[in-house]
């Protein structure tokens, strides 16, 4: 029993290592968006994985292990962001719609940054981390329906802003 648990936990640590090696850059990207500083974000990713390893004994497969790690990384990043001095967001308020990918990119960044925190987080997890609704629900500890509704609200906000700008 003890040995089985020992082997099982070491197998889970090996799974976590594989996940870390495969997806470190994705974790770092989302953590950077939350903390707005890559050094702080790296620390959040490291601490998030370390926290997950420390809590493996209580992991009973309640959800995908990856979602568990995302939850730890996001929570650590949010905590660190709260303790960091505010950093101005890049971008600017859209004044008129222009052609060109660069302008589109800048506008989208500004609009996404202006979303309420939960909507913004869900957009990051959906499009930057490629998580499905169920995984996002596990990460943020909310219902799947709430993820769907919040993402829909974010889309609606962005759509409205884009239509106003394009007029």
């Amino acid at each position: 029993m003890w040995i089985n648990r020992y082997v099982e936990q070491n197998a889970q640590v090996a799974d976590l290592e594989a996940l870390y090696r495969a997806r470190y850059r994705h974790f770092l990207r989302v953590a950077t968006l939350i903390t707005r500083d890559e050094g702080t974000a790296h620390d959040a990713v490291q601490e998030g994985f370390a926290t997950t390893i420390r809590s493996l004994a209580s992991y009973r497969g309640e959800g995908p292990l990856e979602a568990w790690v995302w939850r730890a990384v996001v929570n650590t990043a949010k905590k660190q962001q709260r303790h960091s001095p505010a950093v101005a967001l890049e971008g600017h308020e859209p004044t008129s719609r222009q052609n060109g990918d660069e302008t589109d990119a800048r506008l989208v960044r500004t609009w996404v940054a202006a979303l309420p925190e939960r909507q913004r987080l869900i957009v990051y997890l959906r499009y930057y981390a490629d998580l499905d609704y169920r995984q996002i629900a596990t990460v943020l500890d909310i219902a799947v329906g709430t993820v769907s509704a919040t993402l829909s609200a974010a889309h609606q906000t962005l759509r409205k802003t884009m239509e106003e700008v394009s007029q």
Partner: protein
Amino acid sequence: MTDVEPLIRSQLGSLMPLPDGSRSDWADVLERSGHRQRHSRRRLLLALAVALGLLAVTGATIAAAVGAFSGGRMTIADVKECKASTTALTTASGARVLTGHTDAGVYCFTYEAANGGGGSTANTFPTPAGEVIPGKVLDTVSHTWVIVGVVPPGYDKLSIGSQQILIRNQVFVIDPKLAAKPGTLSGSAGTTTINLRDFATP
């Protein structure tokens, strides 16, 4: 009406490309977690002590009953000695499952994705899942989880619901979604039920 999802999808990647991964440092993660010290030293010693205790009690009981002691259970030393070196199966994505076992009957396997990532485990039959040594691992090429199982000799087919999975060289690989239902191993060794629900994707 503007559909923003395609625009978000196309623009977010260029807005924030994947950062450089040169800072990644798994050893630092392990150090922060205390895993090396706590798990690899203290727990290893504890697990060894428990294993030796179990062996002594089991051996003494059997010896008392039949006047002889044979066989034994897995020890951490066995796990370390078990080098998976035989390619048992290659998946469609190019991943390989390597198997091996010690003379004491401890089986082990390594799942190695096409880019070298993967994981490994070791155990003896039976496990809590039945006559199978299961492991769940992330395929680092397809970024999907798979369940790998090693079964005793004499089984060539795994049936789960209407799905029939061929077992090659004692090894099968399945999608975790299939693991919610019990499966049946069959072959010249007979039939037996296995249960991989602890590894299923909810």
